[in-house]
């Protein structure tokens, strides 16, 4: 992990959380997905969201960058409240990277063009500057030999690493990962987690939805267990994963253990 894009942390008043979620609720029609969630993520913290499917993990993540609109409550990033006007959303999203379960690389562009796109379109960098940065980032995720490949010619793990590089190209101060390894063949999971681990070691603030308990244990500063739209347990990984207090948490952890 070398210098090309060590995340630059803008000066933030000491103690101010990077993300501050207050009373976040979200309903789709009649079904309540998030029910009054309060959550702060500190600068440089790696917060891992776990929980049964349908718990609202992905929805919570998507509410942080405004892909979903909260029904009630608020999200603040570095003290700036999330607003849903297009210009405000665009400005916020420049600094918040997101990595999706299904990669969502642009299939009509090569790997390096994927990483260059937003740099040129949003940050107005020249093609040459964007290319230089993109190629450094692709090298950083171990894909220096795949720069000219189209996504269809890459494995799932390679595609996801390009997607991470694409998000990093905007120098985000926060990275959101929505089940980044769930769509991968088992043997490809490790290479993606490795990149994420290095990112965490570099001090990136990360919110990760995952089913990879080993990753949660090794990399998370804090594990947050969501169920039925609320936080049932949170704390250090050892505490939440090994000594859960609530019955809901115990039941969930038993389930994943027996499921492998």
């Amino acid at each position, binding site marked *: 992990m070398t210098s090309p894009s060590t995340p630059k942390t803008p000066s933030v008043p000491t103690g101010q959380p990077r993300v501050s979620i207050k009373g976040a609720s979200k309903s789709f029609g009649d079904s309540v997905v998030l029910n009054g969630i309060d959550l702060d993520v500190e600068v440089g913290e790696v917060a891992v969201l776990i929980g049964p499917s349908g718990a609202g993990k992905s929805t919570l993540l998507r509410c942080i*960058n405004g*892909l979903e609109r909260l029904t009630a409550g608020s999200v603040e990033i570095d003290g700036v409240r999330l607003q849903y006007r*297009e210009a405000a*959303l*665009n*400005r*916020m*999203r*420049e*600094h*918040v*990277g*997101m990595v*999706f379960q*299904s990669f*969502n*690389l*642009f*299939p*009509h562009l090569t790997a390096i063009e994927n990483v260059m*796109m*937003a740099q040129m*379109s*949003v940050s107005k960098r020249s093609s040459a500057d964007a290319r230089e940065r993109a190629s450094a980032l692709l090298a950083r995720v171990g894909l220096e030999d795949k720069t000219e490949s*189209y*996504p*269809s*010619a890459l494995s799932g793990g390679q595609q996801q690493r390009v*997607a991470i590089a*694409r*998000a990093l190209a*905007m120098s985000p101060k926060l990275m959101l990962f929505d089940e980044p390894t769930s769509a991968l063949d088992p043997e490809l999971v490790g290479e993606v987690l490795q990149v994420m681990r290095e990112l965490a070691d570099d001090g990136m603030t990360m919110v990760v939805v995952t089913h990879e308990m080993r990753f949660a244990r090794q990399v998370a500063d804090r594990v947050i267990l969501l169920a039925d739209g609320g936080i049932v347990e949170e704390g250090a990984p050892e505490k939440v994963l090994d000594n859960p207090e609530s019955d809901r948490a115990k039941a969930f952890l038993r389930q994943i253990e027996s499921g492998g």
Partner: protein
Amino acid sequence: MEFLDALVTSWPTLLKGLRVTLLLTFLTLFFSVILAAIIVALKMSKVRAFSAFATVYLAVVRGVPLIALLFVIYFGIVSIVKVDAFTAATIGLSVHSSAYVAEIFRSGINSVHSGQVEASRSLGMSRAATMIRVVAPQALRVVIPALVNQAIISLKDSAVASFITVDELFMSAQRLSAATFQPLTYYAIVSLYYLAVVGVMTYLSGRVERYFKKRG
């Protein structure tokens, strides 16, 4: 062998008509794509008045026979400003085709996975930039076969321009048939012309599709 004679001797006349038909078809395609892009943008707009206008436009244009549309435009416009028949035909055919091209564009846009838009917007790209740089290039590949099909329809539709005195391919055949009293011969010959052009267009679209497939 009479037919072959007629085929050879009618060539110079029909070639002139064919030129006009091809130009008319090309202009129709060009303007209907521009019109359709505007209509789709209006239709997808968050401003209610814009999307309502697009809905009405599509309903009217699709609900009116081409020949009626053409007559309305030709006689309607001529009464206000002096335009020639060719211009009126270009406008009429373009408006008519634009409704169908708009539907093709819309289905192409809808075929692009929503994750593409989310990925683009998550990078801070605006709605417009997302449409232009991410959605449109992917939609374009999907719609090429349908667009070629629409171009073929426009080519054949352009024969209707003869009703407002445009001297295009079909009109040339009409005149030949009237002069020789051999309608079967000349309408068969002119049909072969249309068939040949459609054949070339189909071949080219196959090439274009293959080109895009190779790029994954």
